[in-house]
């Protein structure tokens, strides 16, 4: 059950895991060698991919989109109307974010995003998805018991709040715009980005309040 890597804490598990990884390490090295020898893959291109998603593209991008939407009504309106264009205007675009759509949380409605069929996720604004997002427990359950799922993330919504779960079954990629937290009046756009967590943009979290930061 390697999809639940987060709970592999016993010694036995670690032992299994290590053996397993070295096996994969050998297999993947062999594959890379073959593809390089055949002239199909440039090792520098592999490095660019890794460098991009390990260091350049991640949820800080999405946090800038959200903070701007909180302080700039014109940007918020453009995000509602054409999210791809609004997000591109901040310099974020590309693979797995070609067709973006922003969904706005309100006191009446909370939004959550899933891909029940694979692992669709808005890479340009959130980076690569965490293991739980790609794994069977979240993908199977959030569509029918989102409140229970939220509880496992430590989030409890008021009883009357409706929940809409967006299943990314096509090439549209959804970004949740969380509500601006209480007590954040007067904070600058750049300070506000620190309140925007990755999970708040998937819908499994809320934006932090200033004292939680």
């Amino acid at each position, binding site marked *: 059950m390697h999809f639940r*890597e987060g709970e592999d804490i016993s010694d036995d598990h670690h032992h299994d895991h290590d053996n397993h990884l070295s096996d994969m390490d050998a297999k993947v090295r062999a594959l890379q060698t073959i593809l390089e020898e055949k*002239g199909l893959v*440039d090792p520098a291109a592999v490095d660019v*991919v890794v460098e991009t998603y390990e260091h350049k593209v991640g949820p800080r991008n999405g946090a800038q989109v959200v903070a701007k939407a909180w302080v700039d009504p014109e940007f918020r309106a453009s995000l509602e109307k054409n999210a791809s264009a609004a997000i591109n205007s901040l310099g974020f675009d590309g693979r797995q974010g070609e*067709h973006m759509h922003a969904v706005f949380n309100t006191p009446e409605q909370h939004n959550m995003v899933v891909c029940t069929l*694979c692992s669709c996720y808005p890479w340009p604004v959130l980076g690569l998805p965490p293991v739980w997002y790609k794994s069977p*427990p979240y993908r199977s359950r959030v569509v029918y018991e989102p409140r229970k799922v939220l509880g496992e993330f430590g989030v409890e919504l008021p009883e009357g709040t409706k929940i809409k779960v967006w*299943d990314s079954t*096509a090439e549209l990629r959804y970004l949740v715009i969380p509500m601006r937290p209480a007590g954040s009046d007067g904070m600058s756009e750049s300070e506000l980005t620190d309140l925007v967590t990755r999970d708040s943009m998937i819908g499994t979290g809320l934006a932090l309040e200033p004292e939680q930061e």
Partner: protein
Amino acid sequence: MDGPQDLGGKRNFGPINPEQDEPIFHAEWEKKVLGLTIASNGLGHWSIDEGRFARESLSPQQYYGLSYYEIWYEGVTALLKRHGELTDAELAAGKALQPGLRTNRKVTGEAMPKVLASGGPSERPKSSEPLFSVGQKVRTKLAHPAGHTRLPNYARDKIGVIQALRGVHVFPDTSAHGEGEQPQWLYTVEFDGAALWGPDAEPGLSNTIDAWESYLDPA
């Protein structure tokens, strides 16, 4: 296909267990699998839909037993083999035994940033009028195709409402099988939770899917 990937509404997979301060990768080989997969996609042998179908065609035992990037490894090796770029003998030998085919399509390190930045948009020019409009009631098709589909099991033969028109997009059910893009109108369809899950649905729940026109009938 009703494969192991179609997870919405399934039971007994346990708690979510989010990992605190999760690293982006859990091992060096995971980075390589991501990079090799994206670089191999660039050869242009297969569409994103064929790539997804390769991964969901694993047996349930494999799909549920392997980690995410192990599934990707299985997927990319299957695709490379299917398109003549890799053989089992080469994997066993750990070296190339015959020349690559699409070496002229190799993505260089210099070109990769542009490949990542431009992505692969699925929207195509509108060539027909949409059959449905916002607010219209629709019923999703009842079908269990053997090939690729993006209509999840939990949302088949259900009544929902068109919430938005999303333009004309490549149809995955044909694109996955080398049958062309055959673009169709794409809609966001919203369902009342109880329409999908019955009277025990969590109160206030609604679900959406993005559905191609041929997945829908007027209700």
